[in-house]
């Protein structure tokens, strides 16, 4: 595709619910990243995939957060038992390979009530 796409663009949910956020990387990009951005701050790393496998998941805040990339393209970030503190913009990025320029999607704005 022309760029990284993310769906939904906005998600409002209630505390305790489960949510899934989707990322479609640029076609042919093998590396995919998830970041989280809180208001007034820079994005913070969550997880990095090289192909289908999570090469670095050290940024995931706790075990309520999980991400998959089963076919090495689309990725889904899953959040269980959402908390109000999970409210943020979740950004996805992709790159052609390891240590190359990362291109970001428009983000999913998650609001947990």
């Amino acid at each position, binding site marked *: 595709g022309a760029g990284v796409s993310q769906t939904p663009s906005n998600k409002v949910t209630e505390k305790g619910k489960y949510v899934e956020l989707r990322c479609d990387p640029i076609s042919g990009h093998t590396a995919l*990243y998830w970041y989280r951005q809180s208001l007034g*701050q*820079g994005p*913070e790393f969550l997880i*990095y995939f090289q192909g289908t496998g999570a090469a*670095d998941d050290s940024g995931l805040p706790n075990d309520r957060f999980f991400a998959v990339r089963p076919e090495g393209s689309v990725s889904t970030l899953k959040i269980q038992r959402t908390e109000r503190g999970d409210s943020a913009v979740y950004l996805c990025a992709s790159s052609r390979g*390891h*240590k190359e*320029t990362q291109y970001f999607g*428009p983000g999913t704005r998650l609001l947990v009530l």
Partner: protein
Amino acid sequence: GIQVEQSPPDLILQEGANSTLRCNFSDSVNNLQWFHQNPWGQLINLFYIPSGTKQNGRLSATTVATERYSLLYISSSQTTDSGVYFCALETSGSRLTFGEGTQLTVNP
């Protein structure tokens, strides 16, 4: 982990003015990127610049890796340049560590 400091935190300019944004970092880096986050939240790549100088239109960037800083120059600023400018560093692995950003406002 690596520390990234951007300055100034806020900058207000009149259209047509020039500006310099600075990014200091605490450790050696494999890579450095500059981004512009527009008012709609989209992060736009400006430069991929681990060292040296690059120019793209009214924007240019210089990274001096040995002295651990990078500069972003904006010349003849326009209102559409408004937004937040981030530098982001890659150390080990592929994760980017972002600074706090510089909020730029260009007034007509």
